[in-house]
Each structure stands twice: as C-alpha cells, then as structure tokens.
C-alpha cells in the first residue's frame, strides 16, 4: 500500500484537509464534524496553543493573544504596505524580526509567520490523523496562484515546522480544476475564477484525459470580497454623514460595527433579494442621543455599488484568456472558487462574461483541498494498487504566475523568464560588468511585471565575485535561473571562463534562515499545538498529552477582559458570561466565516448585544448561513452543547455571538505595490548599478 499523503488548503480564513484514495476523494472533517477549520491560532495563558474553533472563540475575548489571517503576512517584508495595514487592524503585536521579517508578539513570546501557519498546518495534520487513524507526515499544500517566491518559500517552511513533508506547493486554482476534472475523463478547456476575501485569481486550463495543463494564470492582489464590503461601508457612512453630520469612519468603534454589518449584509445578499442593515445606537449624537442606522439594500443597488469591481476581475480574465490564446467562447466550463462567488450577482456576471453558466457542482470552499488531495495521492502512489490508479494518473503541468527578473543598471529589471512559462524551467543569461576592473556584482532577483525594478517584488540578492577582472563590459557572468514545480526559484551565477560558481536557493531576507528553522524544530514548537476537539477522543500526540487539561475546560475559566469603555457603552447585563463560555460552545456551520480580529475588546462587547437582538428579530434579513451550508448546523451545535458542561450559562447568547463574528477578509486589503517601499534604507542600493547585462559576449 502506498504511503498516506493528504491535501491541505491553507486558507486565509479557513483551512481544509482532504484525502484521496483511488477514485474516492473526501474532505476530512475536524472533531466538530466540520469540513473547514478556522485558520486562527490562540495562545492560552497556560502556554498551550489552540487552533480552529477553540481559537476562533478566543478571538472574541482575547484578541491580543489570538492570531488570525496569518496568511496575509506570510513572506512579507516588515516595511511592506500589507504589514502596515495589518498592524492597523489587528489587536496582536506585530514587530520587526531579523532580515526585515515579521514577528508576532503574544504573551511575551515572538513568533514568525511561518510558525503561525505551521500551527494551523499542525492542526490540519491532527484533523487528518484523527480521521484516518494513522500518522500523516506528507502533504500537498495549496497557495494562491499569484503567490511569489517569498510567500511560497515561507509556506514551505511552515510545512516543515509543522512536521510535514510538503510534497508540493500547488496553486489553488490548479487544485480546483484538478478536483473538478478528476475521474471524469473530460477533455475540456476550463477557467477557474477564484475570488477570495482579498485577492482574485484566474487560471485557464486544458484538461486532457489524464493531464491538467495550465495555459495561463493571472490575478489581482487588491481585489476581493473585502472591497465589496468597503463599498457598502461607504454607502452607509456617507448617508449617515449627510443625515447627522457625523463621520462614522473617524470613530473606530463605529467603524468596526459598520464593517461587521456590511459583511453580514453582503452575505445576506447571496441568499436574499434584499437585506436590511440595522445598526442601533451606532454612535452618540452631539446632544447625547443615540443614533442608529437602518438601511435596506437591494441586490440591484448592491450590484451598482460593486459592478466596477467585477469589471476589474474581467479585465484580468481578458488578460488570462489572451495569454492562453483563447477567447471566452473557447471555454467548455467555468469553475467558481471562493466565498464571494456565492453571490448571485457574481455568478451571473461571470456567466455573462464567459457566455455560459458557471458550474454549480463544485463546492467553492472544499474544491481546493480536494484537488490537493488528489495530487498528493498521485505523488505517493507506487502504482501497484489498482485502486490507486485513478489518482496516480492525474498529471499536472503548471506555469509560473509572475515574470522572473534580474536587476540591471538604471533601476531596471530585465525579464529572464516570462510569466505563464511552463515549470519546471531553467534559463541562463550572460551578463557583463558596468565598471572597469569591477570585482563583484550584486545580483538582484525580482518577480513582477514592471520594467522598473522597484515596482517588482524583491526575491533576494547575492553577491558574486571571483570572475576575471576586465574593462567594463568585458567580464562575463552567466546567471542561471530555475523555477521548480513548486514555483520556487533558485539562482546560480558562474564565470564561464574560470568556472567559479555561486549558487543560492534565493533565500529572502524576510524569511527564516536554516538555523532559525532548526531551532524552532528543536524547540518542538508544533508539539505545543493542542488538538482542538470537543471531546477527549482526540488523537493527541504523545508529547502533548502531558497537558490535556488545556483542551477541555481551560478557556472557560479564563476571565474576559473588561476594559472601561465596555462598561460605559453596554447597558445590557452579563455579556461577559456569554463571552467567557464562548470557546466551549461556539460551533459554527462550515460556511460560517472566521471572526474578525477586533482591534479592541470593547468594540465587541459594546455592540454584540445589539446585533444579537438584530439577528434574532430579523432572521430572514441577517441570518446568512441558512440555505448555503450543507453542514448540519443545528444538530451539531446541540451535540456539542451537550458535551460541554458549562453550556447552560450563555448558550443562546453565545450562539448569537457566533453569528456576529466577522471574517478576517475584512481586514483592510493588503496591497502589494508598496512592497519595496523603504527599500533604499534597507538594502544597499549602491550595488544596483553593478550588474549590468549584455546578452551576448561579443556585444562589446
């Protein structure tokens, strides 16, 4: 029998693990019976670490020690715009680590982002082990197709720290296509339209009997469900300002409420023709009276608010089709992935654009993990077992999403490997020096589509010396770039005459060094992750069983912080009890979004009772999940409630609290553009002029 290898969709908000064997592929539900697990990591007072439902509940009352949306920070430089934006909205501490990396500070400890992601992966590993009844050490992990090398490297490190051998980093849209076409014997051209919380990916693939070839992939890293929320927020805030002269955007508490309401409203529109957004007592007027928002938003109105955003996705689709050498009509199918594609508006617009109905037989939340599982099975198949034949025969040919570039004189970056080139691939180029008797060149590698170096993502730089001294333009340096099947870049330089060579697995400055990874592994970090399960049957790794108490009633007794503003703002009694009990009870349906990171607890406490009431009263308007989830929510909640002793206290309140939670997708969209801002101070720019290129030796 072949080894076991699973597929893990390591999502921004939720993660999902699946396993394939033969023609059977299935999602492995977690201990709560849910197919997706929140990508949230909670650091408890006793030093234990919890991931998933338990952690998500923690977010509510202990946001400072709960980390969500780590994926947004992975592989980023500390000075990047994304990190600045995240800092503005999260309650936990974000600090600068070595090499301009990002560190998260919780309970006096510092963690790198790969470590945070590793904790999520570790939990997914446990989920799989529990379900499969055996140890799992190998996995295919998915990444957004637009992920650059830095982000891929960091994700791979996360796998290692989690104790997983990452067999492959697989692009999410590719995984989706694989799951869609698997075992159907299709010969089709398909587009995968993947609209997530903050990013948009489109891939065009050709599916053969057993080959999946990506023809092109394009994306927009500034476009997702969050932008839809922003439009609604603007609408509400503008109207409120017109009516009351108060700018809600200036009031962080009010803004949080607005964000929450907008996101819930948006989700509502995926089931209903119209939603009513009510925000009682959103802010106090000048005369001390409390002001509220009540606003009905119809699907048509929402559509006009976000139509230009959808148009932007279609521009990207144009590009992808053009790169694939196809027109919309050439496609046999369109596959939708990501939360916002549940909106009828999105489905319809996509249908109009591609001139065909998108496929409805694909679950936008699970399809990526399923595809990863199929690929994982094919990578470990030994081919002896007939049953394995199916998965083993699915063969993937992917492309590199971003052009690989080399920095040259004048602040420019020359393309070495164009985007959408099939991988694995290798290219060599000959370069020359820029100054007489130059002894060293600084080789800088970028990814992106701009000729201007600074507008691309810097992957890394290394110095090359040892080539023969010569007048400028005469020394020769061969630089060889390769991109492997994971999309990971490596570069080596060599002097064709002396044979002197340097090679580097382009290690980015923000990433972890080998030593750091080794230290983390030695510290057994991943083993601190407690298996998150509602009962004691959890497969707890031997090393962690020493502290099983943390799994059970631990969090219930942890006092919720009660900062002053909450007291002033909440006349309702006892919200604290409800919140305290939350970790034990809260079971959300699979579709339920991950809670937003409250920047301060008072916000939550201040508005929770209000919205709770809201949801109870206006089920049809704001109850979002009914009808979209296939998870047996109600039953599960009850079952879980029975298992938990302190259930009675705040059961209702807590369940409502679950409804309240916001998706981390709401975090301000992180943008990539300014990635290298501040570069000047951080990297030695003086070398930029050194590597100058000459594509053939006889040039001078």
């Amino acid at each position, binding site marked *: 029998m072949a080894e076991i290898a699973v597929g893990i969709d390591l999502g921004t908000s939720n993660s999902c693990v699946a396993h394939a064997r033969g023609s059977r592929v299935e999602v492995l539900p977690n201990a709560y019976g849910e197919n997706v697990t929140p990508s949230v990591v909670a650091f408890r007072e006793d030093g234990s670490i919890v991931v998933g439902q338990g952690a998500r509940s923690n977010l509510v009352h202990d946001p400072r020690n709960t980390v969500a949306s780590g994926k947004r920070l992975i592989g980023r430089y500390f000075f990047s715009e994304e990190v600045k934006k995240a800092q503005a909205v999260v309650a936990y501490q974000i600090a600068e680590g070595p090499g301009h990396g990002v560190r998260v500070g919780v309970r006096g400890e510092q963690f790198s982002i790969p470590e945070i992601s590793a904790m999520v992966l570790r939990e997914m590993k446990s989920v799989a082990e529990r379900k499969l009844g055996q140890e799992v050490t190998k996995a295919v992990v998915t990444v957004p197709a637009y992920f650059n090398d830095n982000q891929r490297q960091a994700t791979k490190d996360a796998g290692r720290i989690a104790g997983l051998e990452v067999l492959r980093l697989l692009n999410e849209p590719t995984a989706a296509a694989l799951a869609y076409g698997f075992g159907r014997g299709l010969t089709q051209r398909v587009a995968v339209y993947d609209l997530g919380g903050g990013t948009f990916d489109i891939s065009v693939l050709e599916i053969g009997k057993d080959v999946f070839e990506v023809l092109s992939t394009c994306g927009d890293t500034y476009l997702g469900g969050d932008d839809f929320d922003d439009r609604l927020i603007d609408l509400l805030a503008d109207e409120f300002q017109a009516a009351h002269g108060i700018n809600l955007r200036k009031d962080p508490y009010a803004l949080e409420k607005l964000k929450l309401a907008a996101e819930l409203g948006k989700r509502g529109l995926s089931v209903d023709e119209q939603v009513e957004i009510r925000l009682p007592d959103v802010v106090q007027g000048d005369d001390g009276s409390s002001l509220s928002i009540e606003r009905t938003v119809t699907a048509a109105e929402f559509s006009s608010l976000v139509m230009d955003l959808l148009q932007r996705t279609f521009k990207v689709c144009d590009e992808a089709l053009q790169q694939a050498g196809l027109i919309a009509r050439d496609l046999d199918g369109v596959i939708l992935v990501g939360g916002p594609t549940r909106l009828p508006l999105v489905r319809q617009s996509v249908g109009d654009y591609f001139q065909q109905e998108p496929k409805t037989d694909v679950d936008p939340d699970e399809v990526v993990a399923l595809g990863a599982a199929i690929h994982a099975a094919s990578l470990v198949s030994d081919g002896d077992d007939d049953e394995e034949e199916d998965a083993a025969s699915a063969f993937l040919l992917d492309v590199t999403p971003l052009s690989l570039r080399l920095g040259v004189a*004048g602040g420019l970056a020359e393309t070495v490997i164009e985007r959408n080139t099939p991988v*694995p691939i*290798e290219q060599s*180029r000959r370069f020359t020096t820029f100054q007489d008797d130059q002894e060293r060149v600084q080789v800088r590698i970028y990814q992106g589509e701009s000729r201007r170096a600074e507008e691309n993502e810097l992957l890394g730089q290394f110095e090359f010396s040892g080539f023969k001294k010569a007048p400028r333009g005469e020394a020769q340096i061969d630089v060889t770039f390769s991109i492997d099947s994971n999309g990971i870049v490596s570069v080596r330089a060599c002097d064709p005459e002396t044979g002197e060579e340097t090679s580097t697995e382009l290690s980015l400055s923000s990433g972890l060094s080998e030593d750091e990874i080794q230290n983390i592994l030695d510290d057994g970090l991943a083993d601190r992750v407690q298996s998150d399960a509602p009962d004691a049957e959890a497969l707890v790794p031997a090393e962690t069983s020493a502290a099983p108490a943390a799994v059970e009633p631990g969090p219930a007794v942890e006092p919720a912080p009660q900062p002053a503003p909450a007291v002033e703002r909440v006349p309702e009694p006892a919200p604290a009890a409800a919140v305290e009990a939350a970790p034990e009870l809260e079971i959300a349906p699979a579709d339920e979004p991950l809670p937003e990171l409250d920047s301060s607890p008072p916000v939550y406490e201040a508005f929770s009772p209000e919205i709770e009431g809201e949801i109870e009263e206006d089920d049809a308007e704001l109850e979002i999940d009914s009808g979209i989830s296939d998870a047996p929510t109600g039953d599960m909640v009850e079952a879980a409630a029975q298992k938990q002793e302190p259930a009675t206290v705040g059961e209702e309140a807590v369940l409502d609290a679950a409804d309240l939670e916001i998706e981390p997708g709401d975090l301000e969209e992180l943008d990539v553009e300014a990635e290298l801002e501040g570069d000047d101070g951080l990297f030695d720019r003086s070398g930029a002029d050194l590597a100058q290129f*000459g*594509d053939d030796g006889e040039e001078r």
Partner: protein
Amino acid sequence: MTPALPPAEIRALARLLDELDYYQLLEIAPEAGTSEVKRSYYTLQRRFHPDANRGLDQETRSCLETIARRIAEAYAVLRDPRRRKAYDGQRDGEEAALRIPLVAAEAKTQRENIEETLGRTPNGKRFFALARADIDKGDLDAALRNLKMALTFEPANGFFKQKLTEVQDAQREADDRKRAESR
C-alpha cells in the same frame, strides 16, 4: 503509471541534451503542427517528469530534472508561433544555435538598454565616460558639463538624463550644506 525509467538511460540522455535541438528533444519533425507539439510534450513530461519517476538516486534525479526543464523549454518555444519563428530562423542561420532565450523578443530592448547605459554614439559615449569619472572624483561641476555635452549628442538618452538629475540633486544638496555652514 509509467514505470520508472532505467537510471542509465536518464543519465545518457542528460549528457546528450546539449546536442539536441527542440524538435529532436520533443521527438517531432520540424514541420509538426501545434497539436503534435502539445501531444509530444504531454507524453515526454509523463515519461521524464520527476513526479513520474520516484526513488531515484540524487544524481539521476538531478539529470531527470534537467531533462524535464529542457522539455518544458522546448515546448515553451515551439508552442508559441512568435518564438518558434525566431527559433527556426536562428536554426537556419550560421550559428545554428540549439537553444533560444525564452525572452528572445525582448533581446532587442535589452541591447538598447546597454547602449543607453553606456552611450549610443561615439561622442555620447566619450562625454558620458568623462562624466562618470568626474562623478567618481566628486567633481560635480565637471560632471554636469560633461553630462550636458553627452546629452547634446544623445538628447533622448533616458539614462543620461537620469544621471543628470542625480548630479543636479547632489549639487543642490552640497550648496545647501555650504550655505548652512556659512551661516
């Protein structure tokens, strides 16, 4: 699943790689159509892709990876009419190069860049070289003069212009500093 290839065969092919043109690599005739290119690419990747050949020793594996990359390169060129045309032209030429850079279309702009950074005309080159020497010496006034001269020969040279701005900025800074000190 295709059985793993014999390691000896893999290593032999890897050694041969630099003598094969893209058509030979893909085992197709030079007049093969696009669908044939694709079919062959699929077949060969299946045969040589590292995913399809596990359990090889390090050396054989790295040979296999080299082959797979070269097959992808051949495919990237031959499936693209623009690149394929450039490649066929090159193959027919005296050089008879067996490989072509995947960004061949960009090669021209790259050459232009080099020219731009060194100068395109003899006089442009000469004055720019002088200006560079002045910059190295820290003689900004002289650098400015020479840059301006260089630009009279190559008024469109963006790189010269960029250097000119840099020198002007540096000079302004130096002036400011002097003024501040004298006060």
